[in-house]
């Protein structure tokens, strides 16, 4: 017991001496570091707002926002300093906006992301894609900005944070109303809306009662079932719980999650009598095979990574063979859809085949390419054999 006490005391003493040393070093270096950071910050300001005269700092929960003025006291823009949790600790960055809320540029102040992986957020190629974007843009991964593969967590965190900051700046400092639906204004009823998901349109039915969304059901979607479960019913639950569409959509199927949110938004906007931009329901293609003259036809359509080119052979009003001539999809995945999809089409002699495979996007691509080949054959006046 005495021995343990003695050792603990010695350790404590070492700790105290170490703390004292650190305090001393901190006191010496901190003013220099602060001064240098301030100089760096002024430099960053000068880069984004050449010739600025003064700035006014507002410290709020979301971060620090500096309103930048020129020498005639006109607002030049806003410099936001915000922190977001990346893969490994906080990423602190500056985001410069002009006076209309458009992003001028990004400056990473500090981060502790993995060297060689998460530090891609410092790269120009990642940062430049935000320039010119504003609260009016989706700033959503996969839509108008791209994540960096291998650094998904770091880049998604940045993208989401930038979107929120852009909305916040527009709303709080530039007096721009970011359109937000007031659920209380929506009359009671059940509304349908649709929006693009990860693969195809998602159709939802939203029930509103007493100014609150009480039920959200997805009635149609084309997403891959194994991923879709990550977002459904989680996302509807979040919307209902928060009674707000500004929810966290980061799930195992973020594309689907955003699709659901947008579909709900569209349903509510329609309920309020506003025009919405919904994905055009694809017209069911109906090709009468018996009208297609015998022959071999080529057609192409977009696959997952690039165009897919197929060759379709028709004989006696039936598809006798489908061959994929070219594609750029990943072979390991593509073989989940080829020759499965051609086989299904030939078996059923119909285009309403199940395209859910390990490579659904490729499957849809093959199907569309076949349709394009055949409709091309019909458009050519049924003109005959290309061979």
């Amino acid at each position: 017991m005495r021995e343990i006490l003695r050792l603990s005391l010695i350790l404590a003493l070492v700790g105290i001496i170490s703390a004292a040393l650190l305090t001393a070093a901190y006191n010496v270096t901190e003013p220099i570091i602060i001064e240098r950071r301030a100089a760096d910050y002024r430099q960053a300001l000068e880069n984004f707002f050449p010739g600025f005269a003064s700035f006014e700092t507002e410290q709020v929960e979301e971060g620090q926002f500096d309103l930048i003025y020129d020498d005639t006291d006109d607002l030049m823009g806003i410099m936001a300093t915000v922190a977001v949790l990346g893969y490994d600790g906080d990423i602190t960055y500056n985001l410069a906006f002009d006076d209309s809320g458009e992003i001028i540029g990004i400056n990473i102040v500090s981060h502790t992301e993995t060297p060689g992986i998460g530090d891609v957020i410092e790269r120009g190629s990642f940062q430049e894609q935000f320039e010119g974007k504003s609260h009016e843009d989706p700033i959503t991964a996969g839509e108008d900005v791209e994540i960096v593969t291998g650094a998904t967590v770091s880049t998604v965190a940045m993208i989401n944070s930038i979107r929120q900051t852009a909305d916040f700046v527009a709303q709080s400092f530039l007096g721009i109303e970011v359109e937000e639906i007031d659920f209380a204004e929506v009359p009671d009823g059940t509304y349908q809306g649709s929006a693009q998901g990860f693969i195809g349109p998602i159709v939802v039915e939203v029930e509103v009662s007493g100014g609150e969304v009480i039920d959200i059901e997805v009635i149609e979607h084309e997403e891959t079932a194994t991923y879709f479960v990550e977002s459904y019913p989680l996302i509807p639950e979040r919307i209902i719980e928060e009674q707000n569409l500004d929810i966290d959509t980061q799930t195992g199927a973020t594309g689907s999650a955003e699709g659901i949110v947008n579909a709900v938004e569209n349903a509510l906007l329609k309920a309020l009598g506003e025009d919405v931009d919904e994905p055009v329901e694809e017209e069911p293609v109906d090709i009468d095979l018996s009208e297609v003259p015998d022959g071999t036809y080529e057609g192409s359509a977009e696959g997952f990574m690039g165009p897919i080119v197929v060759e379709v052979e028709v004989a006696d009003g039936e598809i006798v063979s489908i061959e994929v001539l070219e594609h750029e999809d990943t072979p390991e995945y593509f073989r989940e859809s080829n020759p499965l999809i051609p086989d299904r089409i030939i078996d059923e002699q119909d285009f309403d085949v199940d395209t859910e495979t390990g490579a659904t996007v490729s499957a849809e691509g093959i199907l569309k390419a076949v349709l394009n080949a055949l409709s091309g054959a019909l458009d050519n006046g049924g003109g005959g054999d290309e061979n």
Partner: protein
Amino acid sequence: MEPKNVYLQDLTRGLVKENPVFVALLGMCPLLGVTGFLFYGFGMGVATTAVAFGGTLMVSLFRNLIPSQVRIPIFIVIIATLVTVVEMSLEAFQPELHEALGVFVPLIVCNCLILGRLEAFSSKKPVLRSAADGIGAGLGFTLALVILAFVREVLGHGSLLGPNPDTVIQLFGPNFEPMTIFAQPAGAFIALGLLLALFNMFTKRFNI
């Protein structure tokens, strides 16, 4: 043996004969991580040498007061304190280097080269000899970093004293296509392997 020679021996032992990198293969993490540019490799070496010197000095000063049961935690606290001081100084006085070295500066704490010197030498030997040993090990490490960084910067970037545009010297003119592999971590392994082979060849041949 003359006492003077003992110090000299302690100092030079780490340079070649017991070089922490080429012989003991210690401190591989910063060695591979920050040797993309000569300046970074040199900065890392100096920072590590400072910590090694401070650590060996402190530990040998108090070697009779440090109970052997808790010596490892005490060593770690001492090293961590020194590393933090070095990191704060770098941030204040060498911000560019501090930014470039990034997480590898705090990681000096777990550089086994330093803990190894404290445990194997400083905890048993007098102050001056320990200090000489610490500096020697640090210099040996710096030497290895500088050689590797030199090779990697020349081959991987075709430059010297980069990446600061004020000091950088382009060695091969505008048509030079650098061997980018050497700028990458994989190239660090390759370069290190080749250097180790060369080092062994020379030490064998000249019987050092």
